[in-house]
């Protein structure tokens, strides 16, 4: 009897530790699975996922935001953005403001911009005010530039004055922001780049 109980206990330990272990590595396993699926189905793994996940609950899609498999992260972001399940807005805000990994927060912010532009803009401005060390700093600039929000202009200008101004996205931000003021700065930068190219010759 004692032996039997011992055996059951060992089985339980094995199953529980195996289960916990699987849950821990599940995203990585899913990542490998996604690459394999894409390899055998190059004609649209994303489309297949979109169809399969379209009827899934919002919580499931939120859980896939920031997934190591880019297809999972991208498809969940796109489906959530279309769905506009405002009952879950606070959950999304929580993710953006949480200590979760940058990829998950970034995807949540993208969805938030699709759901509630005012709230997302407010959060993006707070991120910019928090300074360059904020992990979503560049993402916030990108969204606000996309929305052509005037608040963002000094932050672009700051990037345009930085030593790495030709590779930090400033050129693209200025172009997309598109005001006369921004285009003049862009013109100066491009002239400078051409001059330095001439100097190299």
């Amino acid at each position, binding site marked *: 009897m004692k032996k039997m109980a011992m055996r059951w206990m060992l089985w339980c330990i094995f199953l529980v530790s195996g289960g916990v272990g699987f849950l821990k590595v599940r995203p990585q396993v899913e990542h490998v699975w996604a690459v394999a699926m894409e390899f055998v189905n190059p004609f649209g793994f994303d489309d297949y996922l*979109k169809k399969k996940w379209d009827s899934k609950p919002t919580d499931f899609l939120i859980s896939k935001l920031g997934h190591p498999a880019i297809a999972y992260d991208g498809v969940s972001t796109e489906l*959530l*953005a279309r769905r506009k399940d405002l009952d879950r807005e606070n959950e999304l805000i929580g993710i953006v403001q949480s200590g979760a990994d940058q990829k998950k927060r970034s995807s949540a912010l*993208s969805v938030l*911009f699709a759901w509630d532009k005012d709230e997302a803009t407010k959060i993006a401005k707070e991120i910019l005010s928090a300074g360059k060390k904020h992990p979503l700093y560049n993402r916030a600039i990108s969204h606000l530039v996309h929305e052509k929000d005037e608040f963002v202009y000094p932050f672009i200008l700051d990037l345009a004055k930085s030593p790495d101004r030709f590779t930090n996205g400033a050129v693209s931000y200025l172009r997309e922001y598109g005001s006369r003021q921004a285009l003049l700065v862009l013109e100066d930068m491009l002239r400078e780049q051409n001059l330095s190219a001439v100097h190299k010759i």
Partner: protein
Amino acid sequence: MDLTWFDFFSSQNNALTQTDAGFLGLTANRRWKQEVNDAAPSLAAEIQDKSNKFIFVPGVNSTVGGAMANDISYAEVNKIADVFHVANTDKQVVFCHSAGTQVCLESLKDAKADFYIFASPRVSRSTFEQMIHDAGLKPEQVLVVTAADDYPHWPTDVIFDPEKLAMDIAKGNVVNAAENIATSLTDTLNSSFYDYGNNTNIAGELEYNYLFLDSDVTAKDNATTPLLKHAGGIKGLVEDHEYDVKNNGETEERVSLRKLYSDYFKGIF
């Protein structure tokens, strides 16, 4: 990539040959080899005709002008050609993708264009380097593009220390041996995704230009699925997406794929 790993299943004279994997592998390999062998001489002939300013060579799973999801339309090919301003130059551009990269490499024996884009090459990096070297292509004439969610490649530099492994096993140091194997496997897996990033020779000189599409910022801005898969280097151009990239190892943020291709092309003048 030539699916040579399937050959193992196909060549075994046992029950494995009868499996679906063996059958599929055999079919896929035949199709791949046949298409490459057929296409390379035709491509060489097209390149020899210098009135062809832009040549697009697709992979085995897509055709130009077809009606399938993976196919590319003539309008899209023209859109890609426009990036290189081919109408206003006497330079010839060849844009190859996937299996098409092997076709391009095979054709180099008979004809050479001015500028090549190899989007997601499907040959090992050592073979690739040897073939562009033999053809006398300069680094500025070759741009390799891969994306973060692309298929893995065959890694050329496998980090593996067989001597250390043998020593560990001889000493009965099983833990070290297991660690060695695990590290080698992990390194091989990582290397298989990023292998083409090793684009300098021992002297530190560029062998070819290498562009890695790291993150699709346009998709992030619009909350859509990123164009970072096997065809990311084409779709991102056709749909004019901007990316965070590694440009010969240097990080560049939010830069348009059109601009990057165009800049590299201008570099050959």
